[in-house]
């Protein structure tokens, strides 16, 4: 569902860009690709940490699960802090979703993605508590594996979102 939702938003963005390419390009040039690239690395590292947590559960190394989940969650928090700085700079420059269509799409797409990251961080916190109660382990993998699919989906959405908004000239 979420992937279909983002798919539709991507297509709306591209058709909007067709009508006013100059406006979209001017907007894109105000975005900092270094911020976006850093966010990519943060999410990739977070995904890897989650994989390590799942592997720890699968191989019955229960004490390691919560540690990897914390690492994954901290990456999610780092992503949020980075986004807060990015939004802060845009608002300080007077750029809001009402500025023009490009910024409307920029805030809607990155905002919905950020909500997914925040939801994922809450999920990681719950999983961390569950891991401490030894709720995960061999034969008790379904919940953590499904959570992993969600968290990796958040990562892969960003991988398409980043070039779409920040890089396509």
């Amino acid at each position: 569902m979420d992937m279909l939702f983002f798919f539709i938003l991507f297509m709306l963005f591209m058709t909007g860009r067709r009508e006013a390419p100059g406006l979209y390009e001017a907007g894109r040039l105000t975005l900092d690709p270094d911020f976006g690239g850093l966010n990519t690395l943060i999410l990739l590292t977070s995904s890897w940490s989650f994989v390590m947590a799942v592997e720890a559960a699968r191989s019955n190394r229960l004490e390691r699960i919560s540690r990897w989940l914390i690492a994954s969650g901290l990456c999610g928090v780092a992503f949020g802090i980075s986004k807060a700085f990015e939004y802060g700079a845009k608002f300080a420059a007077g750029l809001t979703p009402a500025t023009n269509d490009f910024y409307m799409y920029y805030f809607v797409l990155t905002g919905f993605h950020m909500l997914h990251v925040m939801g994922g961080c809450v999920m990681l916190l719950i999983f961390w508590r569950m891991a401490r109660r030894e709720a995960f382990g061999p034969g008790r993998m379904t919940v953590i594996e499904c959570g992993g699919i969600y968290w990796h989906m958040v990562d892969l959405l960003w991988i398409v979102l980043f070039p779409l908004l920040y890089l396509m000239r």
Partner: protein
Amino acid sequence: MASVSMNRAAIITWFMLVCASIATWLLIEDQGLGAPSAVSLILLIAVVKVRMIVLHYMELKHAPLRWRLVFELWPVVAASLILGIWFFTGTAADCPPAS
């Protein structure tokens, strides 16, 4: 031992994803490359990265075909349509800045 090799596979996947991200960064730094080539390559790298995450991190290579198809087709269809519309529009870099 199986776990050790899985852990190694996970870090190798992470390393390749980081290398792909650096390749994207080099592409946007390279001003000599034409916009159509740069945009095509950037989207191709994104599709490859998504596929690596789907197969190795989501572990969908072991999933039922129906689920695997959804997650394999999504990036290909999304990137193809994005690229198709981009070519239809052309590069925006030459457009006069909008007010």
